[in-house]
């Protein structure tokens, strides 16, 4: 058994910085995007100065977000391979939400929910970038046929919806699962937290420490 | 103009713009009214919408007008006489003429001089060396009573109608199709439609413009249409007529005021150099009646002439000095514009005044023009714009490749106001003098033309006064009564043209009564005298500025008859008549031919109606006076007598540059035998072997001549020079729409963008496939539109034999992709 009082490193400083960069850019992109998504949210454009500024900034913010996210993707790609156990885990969402951990398969570094979310983010980010470029005024839109642009705006809006939904789940999961936020702010978790939420990962980490 | 006067008596559009709405059939041929006269074209759409008119367009290109037509027929450029001659043949051989009209109102019954004949393309009296005719046999046979002989039964073999039948018998539908390239079916279809208007209550109107005048046989093209209209009984009728559409807003005014080199105002003529005797001059022009009881209005020539001389030289013009007849220049030859540049080119003309005119762009063969201008000592250009002519000496690369260091001509530019910057009248195609008011002051140092000319005159007069000279009298004695001598006002000039009484004028019927006090404005030219008691600057304009005020400024558009004869809108010469020869709208008994279009009629005492009668107002029908009052015989001329240079009947001659190289009617006489060609220009004609395509120049609705390349809006609408070719030719030459192409003639080349179109189709003529190349004219090296070549780099120097209007519509070119 390892020393329980010793904190375990879950995220390195560069990983944390990268995450928060994506997070901030996402918030900005989402606020800007939402303001153009529906009149309910148009007031959000004031955060950027005006509707016009929102229109100007949003594509740049989005592109930066995509590029930052590329970094995260590289870092976490390997950790997010879906396994048979993950599929089992997903099918028992009721047990997950009601914290009946004992009934669930053992969780590694990431649980299946986290993994799926990762892949959803990868997919939506790519779709957002491509569709966004297609109707980016005034730079690129004039070069594409109107039919394609019409599809692009729908794809963009749908992808954004899915992404935002995912992020809501992501944020709530972080709030709900105590100890997660400090993992991303401070970089470490307690051994108890690790053993509790990610026992598979905890075993691996402790093995490494022993050796 | 050179054809309408010999045919009807006056050289202008017979009807007027609004009247076109009354037509049943409208033919646009030799013009493109929708393109060049979009505002006037409204009356075509009115006729279609409200009169169920059939609209026909005949043109080498499917034009903007053709886009509106019920029936379009293509025609090879320059072959309109063949087409219309074929129509004459059709009407005569199918008996589709309005018999009573033709018999009574035309010279169909006139018996022609025995010596007259036509053979192998030549009329009697041809002098091959001089390229001109002795026209003494083109006259009528005179009877012992001193009047021309007629045969009212129309049986005499030499009566005009029979000679006409004989002349046009050669113009069979097959021959027409072979020459014009129009299919026989289309030609006959058009004949049939035109023939429907030979009945008294249906009319055709013809609308033409430069598409007829700019040919070496232009005047005769117009005359052929005039003959068609006479056979159909359509002259003088509302909704009929031959409508000459003038391109410039005031070009009708230009000819009315005698700005051509052989004219005085109101179509009075300058004497020739042999006419040194005043009385002989006057006698020759004072027409004697050729038939009994005719009005013979030109018998008033002395009144018009003397009043003009009184207007110019006032008290100095006296009966004793023949009203200053000696002051008038006597012409050795006509100094038309083509001759002017020929003389310049020969180094015989050293100074040139160019007022509101851009000859470098407007006349043929740019190279010859540039050479001519380069030989001048001085060139004065009076214009609102920096015209191409005023900058002919500037090098503009390929567009004007000259060497300024080699050109010694001193160019003086006097900036003038444009039409919107001064008051005055414009005379439209329909002969309406419409007053307009300045919209703004001219910019910078620009002055209006009156002021510029007055300044030059006063300075010149001062020089004559100080230094004398060979003959100072005409200058020193000229009347100059203007309040501000260096700036005569438009109103003063207008009043001068209208004329005034110099003495109290007595009533001719009761000499004890004074009808007009000394010094008052005349009511009309009916008051003019040949005894020096009236002055009138232009008899045709008399009535336009009377004691009642400026008639040209009237703006009452009420139209009680519904025929569009708004007698209280502006002033229409002559005498505010709207439709000329309107007596011919009634049958000989004085009843309108068409009860639904009653223009004028005899009410038992006088002529009255919706128009000012073009007739002696109190001459009852029983008197037998005929409607064409300007002619001494009182009738219109199917046979033009000796009034036309190349023959009394129009005959088809090929353009000087013909793509078929022959004339299928008479291969020995290909082109107009009486057209003047200067030495050196003949050699510059190209042959179909080197230049196989029929080139033709024209205007676009987006631009006005060479002016609007200086204005932003027009330049936005058509920014860059282009030429138009058909899809077939484009394919043959590997040219795609938007490619840069080079069009060359024997005189030079231009480069322009290619517009490839379905609207120009190859035609079959004389066994050959003829492709047209369309060359819009509007670009040049000055202005804000994209620089281009002056289109007249390509065109040949030969003019219509009567008017010397250059042959811009038919010439030969080659085309290749750059």
């Amino acid at each position: 058994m390892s020393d329980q009082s010793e904190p375990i490193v879950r995220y390195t400083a560069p990983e944390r910085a990268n995450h928060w960069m994506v997070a901030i850019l996402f918030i900005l992109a989402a606020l800007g995007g939402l303001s153009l998504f529906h009149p309910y949210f148009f007031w959000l454009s004031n955060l950027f100065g005006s509707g016009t500024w929102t229109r100007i900034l949003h594509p740049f913010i989005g592109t930066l977000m995509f590029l930052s996210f590329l970094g995260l993707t590289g870092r976490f790609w390997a950790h997010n391979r879906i396994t048979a156990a993950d599929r089992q885990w997903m099918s028992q969402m009721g047990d997950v939400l009601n914290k009946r951990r004992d009934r669930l398969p053992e969780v590694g570094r990431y649980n299946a929910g986290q993994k799926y979310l990762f892949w959803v983010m990868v997919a939506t980010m790519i779709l957002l970038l491509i569709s966004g470029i297609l109707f980016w005024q005034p730079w690129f839109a004039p070069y594409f046929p109107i039919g394609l642009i019409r599809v692009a705006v729908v794809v963009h809006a749908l992808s954004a919806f899915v992404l935002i939904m995912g992020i809501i789940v992501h944020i709530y999961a972080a709030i709900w699962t105590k100890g997660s936020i400090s993992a991303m702010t401070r970089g470490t978790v307690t051994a108890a937290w690790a053993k509790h939420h990610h026992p598979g990962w905890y075993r691996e980490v402790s093995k490494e420490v022993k050796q | 103009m050179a054809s309408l006067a010999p045919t009807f008596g006056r050289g202008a559009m017979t009807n007027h713009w609004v009247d076109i709405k009354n037509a049943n059939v409208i033919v646009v041929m030799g013009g493109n009214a929708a393109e060049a006269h979009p505002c006037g074209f409204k009356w075509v759409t009115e006729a279609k919408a409200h009169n169920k008119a059939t609209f026909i367009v005949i043109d080498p290109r499917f034009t903007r007008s053709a886009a509106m037509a019920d029936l379009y027929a293509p025609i090879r450029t320059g072959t309109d006489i063949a087409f219309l001659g074929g129509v004459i043949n059709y009407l005569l051989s199918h008996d589709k003429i309005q018999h009573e009209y033709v018999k009574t109102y035309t010279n169909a019954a006139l018996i022609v001089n025995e010596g007259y004949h036509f053979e192998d393309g030549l009329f009697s009296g041809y002098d091959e060396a001089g390229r001109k005719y002795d026209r003494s046999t083109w006259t009528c046979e005179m009877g012992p009573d001193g009047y021309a002989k007629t045969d009212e039964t129309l049986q005499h073999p030499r009566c005009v109608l029979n000679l006409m039948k004989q002349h046009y018998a050669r113009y069979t539908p097959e021959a027409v199709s072979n020459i014009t390239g129009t299919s026989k079916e289309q030609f006959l279809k058009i004949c049939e439609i035109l023939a429907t208007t030979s009945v008294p209550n249906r009319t055709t109107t013809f609308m033409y413009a430069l598409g007829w005048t700019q040919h070496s046989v232009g005047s005769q093209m117009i005359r052929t249409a005039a003959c068609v209209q006479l056979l159909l009984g359509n002259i003088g009728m509302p909704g009929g007529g031959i409508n000459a559409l003038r391109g410039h807003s005031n070009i009708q005014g230009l000819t009315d005021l005698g700005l051509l080199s052989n004219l005085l105002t109101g179509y009075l003529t300058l004497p020739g150099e042999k006419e040194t005797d005043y009385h002989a001059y006057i006698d020759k022009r004072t027409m004697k009646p050729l038939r009994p009881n005719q009005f013979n209005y030109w018998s008033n020539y002395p009144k018009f002439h003397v009043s003009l001389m009184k207007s110019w030289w006032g008290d100095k013009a006296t009966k004793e000095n023949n009203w200053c007849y000696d002051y008038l220049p006597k012409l050795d030859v006509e100094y038309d514009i083509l001759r002017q540049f020929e003389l310049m080119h020969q180094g015989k003309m050293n100074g040139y005044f160019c007022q509101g005119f851009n000859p470098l762009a407007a006349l043929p063969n740019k190279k010859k023009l540039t050479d001519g201008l380069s030989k001048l000592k001085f060139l004065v250009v009076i214009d609102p714009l920096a015209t191409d002519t005023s900058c002919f000496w500037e090098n503009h690369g390929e567009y004007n490749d000259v060497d300024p260091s080699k050109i010694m001509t001193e160019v003086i530019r006097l900036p003038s106001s444009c039409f919107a910057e001064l008051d005055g009248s414009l005379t439209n195609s329909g002969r309406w003098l419409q007053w307009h008011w300045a919209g703004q002051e001219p910019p910078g140092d620009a002055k209006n033309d009156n002021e510029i000319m007055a300044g030059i005159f006063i300075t010149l007069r001062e020089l004559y006064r100080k230094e004398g000279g060979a003959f100072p009298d005409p200058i020193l004695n000229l009347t100059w009564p203007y309040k501000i001598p260096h700036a005569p006002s438009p109103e003063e000039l207008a009043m001068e043209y209208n004329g005034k009484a110099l003495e109290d004028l007595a009533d001719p019927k009761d000499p004890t009564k004074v009808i007009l006090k000394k010094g008052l404005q005349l009511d009309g030219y009916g008051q003019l005298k040949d005894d020096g008691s009236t002055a009138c600057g232009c008899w045709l304009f008399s009535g336009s500025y009377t004691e009642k005020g400026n008639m040209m400024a009237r703006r009452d558009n009420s139209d009680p008859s519904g025929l569009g004869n708004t007698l209280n809108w502006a002033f229409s010469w002559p005498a505010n008549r709207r439709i000329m020869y309107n007596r011919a709208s009634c049958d000989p008994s004085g009843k309108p031919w068409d009860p639904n279009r009653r223009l004028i009629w005899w009410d038992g005492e006088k002529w009255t109606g919706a128009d000012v009668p073009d007739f002696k107002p109190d001459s009852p029908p029983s008197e037998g006076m005929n409607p064409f009052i300007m002619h001494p015989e009182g009738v219109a001329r199917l046979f033009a007598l000796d009034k036309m240079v190349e023959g009394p009947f129009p005959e088809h001659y090929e353009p000087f540059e013909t793509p078929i190289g022959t004339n299928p009617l008479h291969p020995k006489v290909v082109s107009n035998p009486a057209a003047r060609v200067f030495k050196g220009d003949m050699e510059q004609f190209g042959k179909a072997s080197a230049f196989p395509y029929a080139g033709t120049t024209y205007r676009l609705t987006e631009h006005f001549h060479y002016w609007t390349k200086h204005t932003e809006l027009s330049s936005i609408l058509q920014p860059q020079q282009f030429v138009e070719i058909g899809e077939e030719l484009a394919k043959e030459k590997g040219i795609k729409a938007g490619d840069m192409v080079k069009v060359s003639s024997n005189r030079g080349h231009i480069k322009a963008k290619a517009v490839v179109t379905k609207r120009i189709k190859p035609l079959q003529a004389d066994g050959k496939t003829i492709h047209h190349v369309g060359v819009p004219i509007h670009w040049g090296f000055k202005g804000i539109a994209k620089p281009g070549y002056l289109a007249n780099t390509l065109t040949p120097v030969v003019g219509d034999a009567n008017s010397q209007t250059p042959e811009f519509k038919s010439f030969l070119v080659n085309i290749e992709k750059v």
Partner: protein
Amino acid sequence: MALQSLDVIRRSATTTASPHQRETAEVAKLIDVSKCIGCKACQVACMEWNDVRDEIGTNVGVYDNPPDLSGASWTVMRYSEVETDRGLEWLIRKDGCMHCADPGCLKACPAPGAIIQYGNGIVDFHQENCIGCGYCITGCPFNIPRISKKDSKVYKCTLCSDRVAVGLEPACIKSCPTGALVFGTKEDMKHHAEGRIKDLNERGFKNAGLYDPPGVNGTHVMYVLQHADKPEIYHGLARNPSISAWVSIWKGATKPIASWLLGIAALAGFVHYITVGPNEVEKEEKE
């Protein structure tokens, strides 16, 4: 330009009622293609009245110039050379905003008040509210609005709403020399069109008709076409235009539903937190 009156019936990106005190008659511009000679006087009148100038371009091998609509060209002539059963026809169509009763541009616009529709049917862009996103372009079934290169705002024909507001006809109507352009109440224009169609029928245009497409609930710019059965021969005039299904999906019910779903998701988290409580490592485990 703003029509300063209280008869706005629709306003882009606005979920509350628009000021609409006054009832005005529906107006329409009728373009009689069979009378149009393509003189471009309307293009000039448009540039002059609105005081905009396109650039002096180049010839691209056709009569059409400027070759397309732009921020400064709100109407252009489209020339089509077509072989029909009557032979060659040169069909010249004045292209520009159709002022749809159901305007796709307004539907797509995310900026409140950038596009408004007046009671008289005019659909107007208020460029001061425009953010330059170009969504209206995707919304338009006629491909009309153009983003200006100068200021990245979208421009199109206003139907001279400023002139119409004070009782004048649009500038293009005033300039048309042949009467191909007429303006009045939509009802009168339909009536006028009937007469024109009858004339065309008599001249052998069996399929002449009025173009007032129902797919956008009719338009306030209508055409009289010689061949109403083949609108596409008029330089690709849409046969049955309607707002694209993609735009309807995007701007229809989906958006409010999606917005609500996002809110519900957040709320669900909150409720879950309150009811189930946080997912904490239990004390005994920690120890």
